[in-house]
């Protein structure tokens, strides 16, 4: 789920940058440091604007100026139990991997309905119910997130298509 979240961060600026464009430089440094990172719970996609740049405070001993910046950013926060659309990119006998924006999802074969079986002989290998549903790299699927795992800088999710209205998306 995408959110417009207000966040706060401390940015330091080297004394060689003290001058006319300090606010712009702080904003640029913020953007470079924060955009595209995963804070553990959510991904920060893009920073919209900063709205509260504090006065710079010189850190004793290093001479760097520290600014506390409040800013608004578009963040992507997946929740357990949420239904998301994703694109399949790898299929193997244990299940398939799908990508929903920056998040990688794995749907295990245990969480795939019984009528959809793995077909290793097809090119490319796919999950199919031999009727209208085929899951192969590039397929759009609707997945419910069952579990999330976070590690520094990245998130992984386990998903399920075992439920009504989940699975392949027609069109």
């Amino acid at each position, binding site marked *: *789920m995408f*959110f417009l979240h207000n966040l706060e961060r401390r940015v330091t600026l080297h004394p060689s940058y003290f001058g006319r464009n300090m606010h712009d430089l702080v904003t640029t440094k913020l953007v470079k440091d924060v955009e595209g990172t995963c804070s553990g719970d959510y*991904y920060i*996609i893009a920073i919209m604007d900063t709205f509260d740049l504090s006065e710079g405070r010189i850190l004793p001993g290093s001479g760097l100026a520290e600014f506390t910046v409040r800013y608004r950013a*578009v963040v992507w926060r997946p929740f357990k*139990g*949420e*239904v998301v659309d994703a694109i399949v990119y790898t299929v193997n006998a244990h299940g398939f991997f799908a*990508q929903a924006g920056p998040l990688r999802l794995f749907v295990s074969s245990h969480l795939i309905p019984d009528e959809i079986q793995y077909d290793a002989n097809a090119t490319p290998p796919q999950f199919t119910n031999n009727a209208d549903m085929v899951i192969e790299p590039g397929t759009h699927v609707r997945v419910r997130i069952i579990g999330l795992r976070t590690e520094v800088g990245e998130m992984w999710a386990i998903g399920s298509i075992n439920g009504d*209205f989940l699975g392949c998306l027609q069109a």
Partner: protein
Amino acid sequence: MSDQNHAPTSRSKPPPPGEEEAGATLKLGEFEDVESLTLSEASLVINALMTKRKKDRKDRNETEVLNKTLDYLDAFARFKQKENVEAVERLLSGRKELTKFERAQIGSLCCDTADECKTLIPSLADKISDYDLQELLDEMAKLMSN
């Protein structure tokens, strides 16, 4: 000596993770009242931001996360025209009985029937009647890429 105000000697415990979920009841943690965006709205916002940065000739800072997100939104955003996105936003914000999260989910998943919508978003079950929800979905379907 004992009544001096010392700084706390241990930092406070971070809020326990793993309790947030979007099941039959919504427990969103720090995102409880944060403005949520449907896929189409997010696509509009991010693309507008990129165009503005390009116009100001600033570095667009195309991180891998950003590119993956843009590709994802291009594939799944249902409402491509700005007017349609705004119309959907007006339709959804009229529904005060739903939380921001639920409204954004409805706008992103674009279900055909009220039953499908309530199955995919379990927290909706008691908040809105099937009839009202179906009416909302039909209005949205009319605005979809026409």
